[in-house]
């Protein structure tokens, strides 16, 4: 059953957006910067003007003000109220359905328990770490008993390890509480990990809606503006083996990919799913390659390394710390491993 339906929603940025989000579903909106992802969330929350129709399971939302829309919004910059404690940030969001200060306090502590920060209830936002603030913001959005949770790049400002951990936590919470969520991201891996369905927004238009496993099968992902644009390897030969794998040839090398039972002529792999080292790593000698570093780009705690493999190129993403440990620079030779389960035929 659809919790939210949009019909021909448009404004200065969005162009005829039509889709629906089902109950208990996590829907990810991906797209390059400026595609209109945040605008779409703001339109849903009633914070931006629009034309077209938006329905919830209770009827049309078009003339409903933001405070009556029952949409929990986790803003990218969190917007925790600095003058309130963690507990105060939650109780302020509890409407009349929870009566009495004590009841509100109890409910706030329950929610903080669920997100694992009950001990921090008396602290102020400026006394919390980035990850803790994120949890408070999530708990606060849930405190208002929303019909749907809107999340704007919820993990983008965090260190990648904390972000990965919180993604798992988010998934656990969603299973536990069963909330419906729409989140926007420009991190394809994040979308694939969390979402039940993924929508691609490009120049204000919803160009595709797909399942996460089809993410790499669709070529039109909005160009190079994504943080984690997957490597698309154009393969030459393919041969089915007896053990559920397909042997393919790329850059003069032989690799194995899982047999997903679909025809393909390309193979996609995220840069974060490729392991590199300066020494030959131990373990089975499959899906290995040698490459030469052509370019290193450092962004937000991560390094994107462009490798030359035979006559081909491939991008690898590693942490800055690991880059420093390996002491890598342009022109160095590295050994690489393509993670078997991260390879998808498309």
């Amino acid at each position, binding site marked *: 059953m659809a919790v939210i339906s949009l019909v021909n929603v448009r404004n200065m940025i969005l162009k005829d957006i039509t889709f629906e989000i089902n109950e208990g579903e996590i829907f990810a909106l991906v797209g390059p910067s400026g595609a209109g992802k945040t605008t779409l969330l703001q339109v849903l929350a009633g914070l931006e003007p629009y034309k077209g129709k938006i329905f919830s399971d209770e009827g049309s939302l078009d003339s409903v003000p933001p405070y009556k829309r029952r949409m929990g919004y986790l*803003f990218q910059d969190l917007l925790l*109220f600095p003058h309130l404690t963690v507990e105060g940030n939650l109780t302020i969001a509890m*409407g009349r359905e929870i009566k009495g200060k004590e009841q509100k306090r109890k409910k706030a502590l329950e929610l903080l328990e669920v997100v694992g920060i009950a001990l921090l209830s008396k602290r102020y936002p400026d006394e919390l770490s980035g990850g803790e603030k994120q949890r408070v913001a999530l708990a606060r959005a849930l405190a208002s008993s929303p019909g749907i949770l809107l999340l704007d790049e919820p993990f983008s400002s965090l260190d990648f390890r904390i972000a990965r951990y919180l993604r798992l936590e988010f998934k656990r919470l969603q299973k536990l509480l069963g909330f419906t969520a729409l989140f926007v991201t420009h991190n394809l891996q994040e979308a694939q990990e969390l979402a039940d369905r993924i929508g691609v927004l490009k120049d204000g238009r919803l160009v595709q809606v797909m399942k996460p496993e089809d993410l790499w099968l669709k070529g039109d992902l909005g160009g190079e503006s994504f943080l984690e644009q997957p490597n698309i390897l154009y393969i030459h030969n393919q041969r089915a083996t007896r053990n559920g794998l397909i042997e393919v040839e790329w850059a003069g090398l032989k690799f194995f990919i899982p047999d997903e039972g679909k025809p393909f002529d390309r193979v996609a792999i995220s840069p974060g799913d490729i392991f590199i080292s300066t020494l030959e790593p131990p373990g089975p000698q499959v899906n290995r390659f040698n490459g030469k570093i052509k370019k290193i780009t450092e962004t937000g705690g991560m390094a994107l390394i462009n490798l030359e493999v035979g006559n081909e190129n491939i991008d690898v993403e590693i942490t800055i710390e690991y880059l420093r440990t390996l002491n890598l620079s342009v022109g160095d030779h590295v050994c690489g491993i393509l993670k078997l389960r991260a390879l998808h035929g498309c």
Partner: protein
Amino acid sequence: MKGLHRLCFIALFLLAFLVAGVLFALIFRLSFKELLDSISSQEVLFALRLSLLTSFGAIIIALILGLPSGYLLARRSFRGKAILDTLLDVPLVMTPLVAGVGLLFLFGQTFLGRHLARVGINFIFSPWGAVLAQAFIAAPIIARSGKSAFEEVSPRYEWAAQTLGLKPFQTFFLVTLPMARQGILSGVVLAWARAIGEFGATLMVAGATRMKTETLPIAVFLNISSGELGIALSCALILIAVGFIILLILKQIGNNHRHGLPMKGIQ
């Protein structure tokens, strides 16, 4: 550099000497007993009470008018905003005496004045006049400081509050106002300082009638005119003490602002 610093030091010393000289001249003009007798006199106590009542009344009116004005100017763009914004600054640069004359003409024997008098609100030559004159001076200060304070609070916090189910008034009183309270508080303290020390406009509107419209500054004026030095000095010293306390409060607000302290503590 040494020569320059020496000259600056002399200037600083002269300035400090002048300020301290004025204070000492006022404080040590009377003996302690004479001062105590004057302070406990009926007239001084009346002036103190009237000053406190009128200034608090003026601040309440100034808050009611100034805060919404400041909020609107901070949040909305509309035709004629720049003119209105500038107009609100006029009382800040206007000579209080002239402001008083304007108020006298507006609320005196005019259509507005006569109608207000008919419903029992008579500003002219009454203590209400003192409240009006002080509110006229204080409200733009509160509007100005309120505008700056509200501008410092991102409207996105109001968005967040609304998505959490808070209605616009709840959002204002539970989120925006507490977050802007530092700047507003500074404005209120400054406005109160101006209101309690207000003389020119009060003189014009409320007049200077002993034991009727006699605020502290009016008491100083009346008693200096009639040679009652004790009462005049007592009132002056009370005003100086009030000024000193206000400066201390402002400094404390400034310190807390730097350390981010008063943002917290509202539940």
